[in-house]
């Protein structure tokens, strides 16, 4: 069983409405940004093939509706997720505050096998805007308190950190699988944040 590995990684993007979930997904998958995205109704997904640890995997990225009212729909989509991306808007403190409930809601609805170590990644989006209201420190603190969730500050508009964030997402999702198969948790869980990520960027560079 350990040799047979899934080549499909299911990634769910969650977060308040208009924090930029759709934009992030499209920036990552299609390398495009549009300011004419509409509010997502229901759910949509994109697929993208990525190479992680010398393996080609297909990432299935699910974009969801941001209004929490529509979460009842989530169950069907959350099932079988390998990684959950929590997005907030650095210019909207409320969207940051709601990360807690998004995380909890996900864990309840998706009910992963090992909720403690289920891979989340937090993205603080819209860093290109200058009316920032949530400080990096505050976000990092929160992430640390939640079992060291990797944290990135991104801009879907400018494409800042998007590629890198999703690489981490893919990697963690894949590791989650490996871990689940080995049934022992590694003592050092990978922790990445915007500072110590810069060097790792060099490794990812493909020319």
């Amino acid at each position, binding site marked *: 069983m350990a040799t047979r590995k899934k*080549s499909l990684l299911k990634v769910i993007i969650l977060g308040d*409405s*208009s924090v930029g979930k759709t934009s992030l997904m499209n920036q990552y*998958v*299609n*390398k*495009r940004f549009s*300011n*004419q*995205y*509409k*509010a*997502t*109704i*229901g*759910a*949509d*997904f*994109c*697929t*993208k*093939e*990525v*190479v992680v640890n010398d393996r*080609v995997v*297909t990432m*299935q990225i699910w974009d969801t*509706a*941001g*209004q929490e*009212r*529509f979460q*009842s*729909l989530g169950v*069907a*989509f959350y099932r079988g997720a390998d990684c959950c991306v929590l997005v907030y808007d650095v210019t909207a*403190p409320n969207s940051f505050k709601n990360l807690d409930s998004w995380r909890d809601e996900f864990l309840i609805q998706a009910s992963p096998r090992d909720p403690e170590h289920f891979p989340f990644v937090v993205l603080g989006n819209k860093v290109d805007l200058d*009316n*920032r*209201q949530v*400080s990096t420190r505050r976000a990092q603190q929160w992430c640390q308190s939640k079992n060291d969730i990797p944290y990135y500050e991104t801009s879907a508009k400018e*494409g800042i950190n998007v*590629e890198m964030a999703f*690489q981490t997402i893919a990697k963690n999702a894949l590791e989650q699988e490996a871990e689940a198969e080995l049934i022992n948790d590694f003592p050092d869980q990978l922790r990445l944040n915007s500072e110590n990520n810069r060097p790792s960027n060099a490794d*990812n*560079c*493909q020319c």
Partner: protein
Amino acid sequence: MVQTTADGMDFKERLIASVKKEVKQLMEEAVTKKYVHEDSSSVTSLCAAVEACLSQGLRRRALGLFKTSSTTALLHKIAKTCAEAEHISKLVQEIEASDPNKRSSSSSDSFNRPPMLKKSSSNSMSTSNATTSTASGSTSASVTTSVSVSASTSMSLVTMKYLWIRLALYEKRLTKIIEYLVSNAQSYYDRDALVADPDYGSILSSLLVGPCALDFTRAKTADHYWTDPHADELLQRHRISCRRSSSTCSRPAIINFKRSLNTSSDDASSCSFKSIASATVAKDYVESLHQNAKATLLYGKNNVHVQPKDVSELMPGYLSLHQHIQTLTIKWTPNQLMNGYNDAEEEDIDKEIYWAYALNINVDEIVYVHCHQSRGEDSGGTVILVGQDGVQRPPIHFPEGGHMQQFLSCLETGLLPHGQLDPPLWSQRGIGKMFLWPKSMRRRILPSVMESVDETPIDYVFRIVSKSRHEEFAATHSILDFVRSTPRRAQLSSCSTTGSSDCSNKSLSIDQYPMESPLLQQHNQNASIEMVCSTMRRQIISRAFYGWLAYCRHLSTVRTHLSGLVHGRITPEMKADEEGLTKERWELLNADGMLQDSTEFYRLIYFGGVKPELRKEVWPYLLGHYAFGTTAEERRKQDETCKHYYETTMSEWLAVDAIVQQREKEKTARAVAKLSSGSNSGNERTVRAADLDAGGELENEVFEDISDISDPGDLEFDDEQRQQQQQLQQDSASVSAAHLSVKPIPRAMKTSTDSGHVDEGLDDLDEEDEQEQEQQQQDDIKKKQPEGNQSAVTADKSVAAKSIADKEPSRSTSTTSSYETVGGAPQPGETRSPEFLSADDLQAQLPDDEEAVRPHQAAAVIITNASVDIGSCERSPKAGSQMPALSEQLEAAGSTAPNLDALQEPKSACASPASSNGGVYSSELLEQFGLNLHRIEKDVQRCDRNYWYFASENLDKLRNVISTYVWEHLDVGYMQGMCDLVAPLLVIFDDESLSYSCFCKLMERMIENFPSGGAMDMHFANMRSLIQILDSEMYDLMDSNGDYTHFYFCYRWFLLDFKRELIYDDVFATWEVIWAAKHIASGHFVLFLALALLETYRDIILSNSMDFTDVIKFFNEMAERHNAQAVLQLARSLVLQLQMIIENK
């Protein structure tokens, strides 16, 4: 190519870069997937990039007088001198000659060369720009190419595009050709062309060495769908495969229904279906000939001749024997299909006939195997398979060399353990499997004949015996029992297939396992033939019976579950000359302003829609806003009432909005300040001090309320004002109220009423003030400048006052609304919290007998108070200079006040949260509504901005309508999707209050679809039943994929009435049909629309056996690209079908 010289090296650099990128992409794909499909998008992109390079700087004259500058022409030109090019050129010509369609597309292709070049190069550039990254995302590649492709509308051109480059690549000759071109560049290219460049030219050819070494495949592998094809690609594939059948894809639904009920055999349609099916399975078929997971290949031999029916001569083909889990299949495929199967897409017309010749024989159906062989020589042999129905299959002629024997022994092996050949091959005189019949073996059945005549062909007849089937048959005993025991849904199929294949041959061989004498066998054969006849008879009867039974049950299911979905009465369709609700018909129906004949009205709309220019008049009837039979006067009054009500409500929430916005602004400003300055511990201390201060000072209950909910910063702000202005406490409250209501008023003014009467100066003031105010607020928070603070207040006041003035002249009849919020403010002495009074409270204070007088007084009070207020805090000369004008206008407004009492009634109907709260907004309410407003704002900002109506203006109207609705339905609150429902209404009416009223009517039905209601689950359940009844094949697919019970791909369809699926014009057309359908055909017309959408693409969904996620993706990608009229038509016919079924008891 003049522009290329201008761009020079940079352009060439980019061209090369794009080739590089595409090569990399392709090689990556080759490595990661182990194969590259010929139609892969990366191949196309590479060809595009190469084409761009080759066309750059191509000399026109080099190609001859009449040639265009196409690279294809270049190829033909160099074919004379370059062997590689000659080969490819020949191939190209062959392909073009073989298909006239293609030639035309190809020539038009070359005609369009110059724009094509532009397109391809720009495409490749955009991709190279975009992909700064990494991962070998073939998805992204497919997306980019599909963009360029969809731009050229006709998708079928794709495979023909860059034909020669493509062929050269497949043939691995592209490098050679390009090398040739590079070395002979001077004769074909401009001097500054990329190909002529010593560096770039060789780079180009060396880049292509890699791709030219690849093997391209046309076979679909198991993981072909690994990279989920884009909807475009799926459509394209489908279009190709159904091109030959003239029938449109929208038909199968109807056919299918008939098929599923087994009633009539619509020959023409079922044929067309078959052809579609055969085409889509063409590839699968050839692939299935190879060994795969499902079936083991037991035997395969090429060049086996078969003479199919209607063919005069023998045809060579590939014979194969496959073992599936339960069954054994013999297949024979004509060579034409085998060799050219990969051309099936292009040359399907030619190939079509061969499909009819292919054999696919289930060994279960075969009873006898006749073998014929000439005696004395190894002449191959002929095998004829005879089915249980006695029909001979076309003879199979084996070539020389014992192939027939091998085939038979493989067949025998395959039959084990559940069956066997009778007599067994291997028992023949102990010679074993490898024998040569002519020499060593004698036919057991008629040995004498065989041996006596030497020259006659040797014939053997084997019977195929199946143990398991026999047992099964014996166990089930009677067909009736057997059929009864199967699940109901399987009945039809079990009757027709399982049942029939079960009986016959198996029953023959009950006791044949031991070796028997030929005589006994003969006897047995007679007996078994009798048995076959009797079983056939029984079968026919039982099939008819169960067919009928199944039909009845289907009908009863339909009746019980679905009869509620459609109206029982079938409305006659439109006559041929009618085309919906035209202007003439509308005038006829709407004679003297009264619309009486609702049935006719609905019928016309249901079948033909409304002419766009009539929609504004017609939609209110459709939505139930206007009642039928009302006079124009009644309707006008109704509209007025609605408008008044709308404005009243709006002014209520605007006040709240103001407070919310102010709080928001303060909060934001504070957060920003905190974040930017960082070291503001002192600042915080002041805030806290101010907080305490305020708490101690405030005895006023109302103000306390505000202080509770407002942020410290907010309070501080008020506090300072109070200290500086030395005003009364109430005054200060009123100042803050006025201040707070500044923001929304310009919006209200801009949108709800026309501001023709406002003088220019006011507008200027308004804008300036706003700017000033904002700036000052910033200053205020950051620097705590008392001066700025003061003038801000002044400005606010003047704007607030002005807004009153502004509204008055334009709507002399509905002044109350503006008084309710703003007008209350200057009466501090009368009540404790006048500024937050709603209309009801204000009215309640006024004794009934004084009504005629009081409003006027109130207005007068307003004027005096306002002027006093403004005067008292007048420091800013700018605001002051506007004063006289303002008070004048207020006065004018005041004089119209007596009109008010005529309009008091609608207010009693107003059940706003504000009034029930007794005029004071609880912090809970503020918070709740604020959150809603925030969400509305965010969604409004991104609602159909690419549609002209919402491109820049009209967003405020959208916001107002939704906010009003949410204010009135605060328990429901705003939910995403409401924007999408209001938007089309607003586009049609371009009137807020009418849109609002109609939206309310619309929401009566739609609200149930939102998460708070239960309609969505009901829709899903109904969809399931409908599909089960109307398209059993689709149902089977969905059922097998499990998760389909959820039908989430329909979620957005139902939530928004297909608003996101269609473009605006189609949304209008679809909505009005939905609304009309409710009265004339079905209250659940959306279900049929959904079904119609599904049916439109059913063949794509079925042939790709899409699962839950595939369908979601497909329809998301197809959004706004459906043919709405066709879908509507199909939906109507589906309704009719269901009505017919229900009626036909």
